Every structure is written in structure tokens, then in C-alpha cells.
């Protein structure tokens, strides 16, 4: 690992200033330290942002949440108001990593963790995301766990975060502190598709500090489901976050997002449209899944994900529909 200086930020302005001088933000370090050890990230300065006063979860009177960027993944998932009002979020966080990692991982770091594409993590290999213009060996090579939607000729990686999939379904937004002041970015505009610039995972500008995540009230049943290669402690092949409001056997409101299928958490608007106002039956669940997955462009070795995503959509909607 390359030697680096370690500093603690004393305020947001202080963090931004140090970043402008070349320091990288350090959260819990569970992704960044790993990538530094692998030689993928080579910062010469780290500025620790976990001691900034962003360690609270605030509940507003309407049932919305403001989650500080330094809140640990464990504390978020254990929070009573989150478990009560936004169970899909707690479930998504609990579906990620291990108890040890969740105790350390922060909300900000979780949002900004990098892809687990094996070429990205191997500094000796070409990879457009790590080294723009060097090529994407995954397209011809090992890609069974990579994207089926929204990928480009430059990159077929998936975003690894479970939490972000729930946040996409919940219409969350990210509070950002940048050089030009504070702003609030809807999660759908926060992440991006690879296009011809896969080196950028998000629309953040250099130095932007994530300070909080805002989650509007939900008020309907919700659930997270994740399919992976072993029962626990593995990244998603496909995952799903769903919220569903049923009245008189008809879908009144629905939010659906998929994980493990694209460069960003995939909000399934077409499926939602196909469901809204229609009966809660398997036939309509299947139609909705197909409406969304029509756009899928699987690679040589990951067509199974299309089937998996379809079945997961149908099954999770059925499970949620039953309870209502």
C-alpha cells in the first residue's frame, strides 16, 4: 500500500478544504482500505469524516427520515422507527455484508462503495472504470454477475449496494455539501448509467461531501428480497425492493427497484405503470415484470438474471399482496 497521511475533519468546510488539497474522504474504510490494499485506490492523504456531527437519525412528524451520513449500517437497521416505518430499508441493509462490516460501514460509504467487478478490483487488468480508455475485459470475459440493463460498450458493471436499492424504491434523496454550497439530489439523479464515462459512478462533483440521506414517509407495506450464490454474506445476483398499497384487490400505489442488474439501482417505472390500477393477481405481476425486462440486454453468460429478476418480481409482489 502507498504511504498516506491521515487527518480528521473538524467540520464540513474543513473536510472540503482538505479534499481540495488532495485528500480522499474516509468513512468506515471497509471498501476504501480494501481498494487501497489492492492498489486500486492510491490516495496520499485520507481525511476521516466519521467524526463529523452526522451520526443521528431524525424522524419528522410526517414519518420521514433524515439519516446522517456517518450513521453505521448496523445502527440504521436496528433503529425502531426505520424498522416500523421503512422495513424495506432495514431489510436491505441487513441483507448486505456481515455483522462485523455493518458495525463499521457508514451510510455515506455504503452509497459510494465501488463495483465488485473482478477486473475493476485487479489493478493488473485493463478496466475503463479504473483506467479510462483501457477497455472492458468483462464484456468478453467473466460477467455472469454483471449487468443486464442500461449497460454500455464501455462498462457492464453493477452497483453493489443493497441499501441504495431500497432508497431508490423509497424516492430518497441525498444531501450533499459541495464547494458551491448545499444541495439535495434525488437518488435517481445521484447514480448514473455508464455511457462512455464509466469512471463516474455518480453525478457528484469532486469534493462533494455526502452529509445525509432524506427518506420521505412511506405508509405502505414494503419488503426487500435478495438472491445470491450462498444464503448469506454475498453480493446480490438480483435483488428487489418493493412497496405496495392494495385496496379492494387493486394496486393503488407501488414502488419497485431492482439491484444487481445495472450500473445503478434500477427503478422499475414500467413495471410500476403496468401494475397501478390493476388487480393483484399473478397474471398482472408477470405482465409488469415483462414490461420492465423487455429492455434487458443480457450478456453471453448472464441471461439467467432476466429469468431471476422476473421470478423475483412476481414472487415478492405476491408475498406482499397476500398480506394486505
Amino acid at each position: 500500500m502507498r504511504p498516506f497521511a491521515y487527518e480528521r475533519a473538524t467540520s464540513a468546510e474543513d473536510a472540503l478544504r482538505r479534499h481540495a488539497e488532495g485528500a480522499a474522504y474516509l468513512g468506515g474504510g471497509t471498501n476504501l482500505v480494501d481498494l487501497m490494499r489492492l492498489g486500486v485506490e492510491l490516495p496520499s492523504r485520507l481525511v476521516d469524516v466519521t467524526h463529523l456531527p452526522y451520526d443521528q437519525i431524525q424522524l419528522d412528524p410526517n414519518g420521514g427520515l433524515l439519516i446522517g451520513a456517518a450513521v453505521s449500517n448496523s445502527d440504521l437497521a436496528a433503529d425502531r422507527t426505520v424498522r416500523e416505518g421503512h422495513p424495506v430499508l432495514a431489510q436491505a441493509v441487513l441483507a448486505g455484508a456481515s455483522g462485523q462490516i455493518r458495525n463499521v460501514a457508514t451510510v455515506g460509504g455504503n452509497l459510494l462503495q465501488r463495483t465488485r467487478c473482478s477486473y475493476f478490483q485487479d489493478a493488473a487488468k485493463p478496466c475503463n472504470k479504473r483506467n479510462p480508455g483501457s477497455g472492458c475485459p468483462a464484456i468478453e470475459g467473466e460477467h455472469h454477475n454483471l449487468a443486464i440493463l442500461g449497460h454500455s460498450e464501455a462498462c457492464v458493471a453493477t452497483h453493489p449496494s443493497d441499501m441504495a436499492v431500497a432508497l431508490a424504491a423509497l424516492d430518497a434523496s441525498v444531501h450533499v455539501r459541495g464547494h458551491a454550497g448545499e444541495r439535495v439530489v434525488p437518488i435517481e439523479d445521484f447514480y448514473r448509467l455508464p455511457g462512455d464515462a464509466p469512471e463516474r459512478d455518480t453525478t457528484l462533483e469532486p469534493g462533494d461531501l455526502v452529509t445525509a440521506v432524506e427518506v420521505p414517509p412511506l405508509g405502505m407495506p414494503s419488503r426487500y428480497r435478495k438472491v445470491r450464490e450462498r444464503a448469506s454474506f454475498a453480493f446480490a445476483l438480483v435483488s428487489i425492493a418493493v412497496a405496495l398499497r392494495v385496496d379492494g384487490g387493486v394496486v393503488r400505489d407501488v414502488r419497485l427497484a431492482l439491484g444487481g442488474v445495472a450500473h445503478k439501482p434500477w427503478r422499475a417505472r414500467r413495471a410500476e405503470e403496468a401494475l397501478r390500477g390493476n388487480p393483484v393477481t399473478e397474471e398482472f405481476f408477470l405482465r409488469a415484470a415483462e414490461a420492465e425486462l423487455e429492455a434487458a440486454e443480457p450478456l453471453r453468460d448472464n441471461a439467467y438474471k432476466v429469468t431471476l429478476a422476473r421470478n423475483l418480481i412476481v414472487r415478492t409482489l405476491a408475498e406482499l399482496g397476500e398480506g394486505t
Partner: protein
Amino acid sequence: MDSEATPVKAEITLRVNGAEHRLDVDTRASLLDVLREDLGLTGSKKGCDHGQCGACTILVGGRRVNACLALAVAHDGAEIVTVEGLAEDGRLSPVQEAFIEHDGFQCGYCTPGQLCSATGMLDEAERGWPSAASEDLRVDPVLDDDEIRERMSGNLCRCGAYMGIVAAVREAAARREAAEA
């Protein structure tokens, strides 16, 4: 890569198993390396150095964490317990005793991490923390075998001693409950 570059040093204080240590560490050093190399506490093991196996699990401020991904320099002032500190006054902890009773190991390499992880996990369960195995997040979970397996999934065992590990953790949980009743 930059093997020529000069290391950056920092002075930190760690409280490990009750004893305070002032240390001059390389900023790149993990807590695992500092515990093993500088303090001679070789109980914590390095299985993968990537957060994937749990052999390095220790308790920091009472919480279980992977020592291999924790930068020592970021933990100035931390209160740490390693496997060497689980026993009190020469008496094994209930978790340690249960691992012996139920054959919770074969080669023993993963065991220090399993013991620290189980210790931290039982505290989490006592605080009512849910897991991915909890069906209803509104109620406090009951530690059945599915819950134990899920909560211990960050600790791999190449010997496959999982049957004994689950039995040991189940027993330690029951003893703890009995002690409190």
C-alpha cells in the same frame, strides 16, 4: 508499488484488554497488524485481509469488527478486546466454555474470530437488533438456529465445524438468559 516512498508515522493510544499502550504506528497498519506485530497478541488471525472471513474479529468499543480493515491510526483512543481478553480472572467466558463443550472447532484457526464475533453478536441480540433472518422487524427477534447462522455468517470455518459452532452459540445464549433471569 511505491515501495520506495517513506512511511508516514502517527502516535496513537489503544486500550487493549484493559491495558493502555502508546504506539508509533505506520498509517497503513491495520489494527490486526498492530495487535499481532507490535503487541504480540497473535490470537487474532489473518485469514484473508479483506473482510471476507472473520478470522480477525475483535471487539472495538464493545462492537465486533474486522481488525484487518480497520486502520489503527483511525482508532486512536479505542477500547479493544481480543480473544486474549475474553476470559476474566482466569475463568473462560461462557462463550469460550460452550465452544469447548460443543466441539465448536477443529483446527482452531477461525476460533478466536468466532469467539469474539459470538460475544459481540449476543450483545447485539440482547439489544433487540434484527438480522436478515428476522421475519417481522417490529418485534425483537428470538435467537433460533436460523438467526444464529445468519448472524454468524461473517465468520467462515474451513474445517466446517459449523454444527458445533451453532450449538455452542445456542448454549451460550441460553446461559446468558438464565444468568439474567
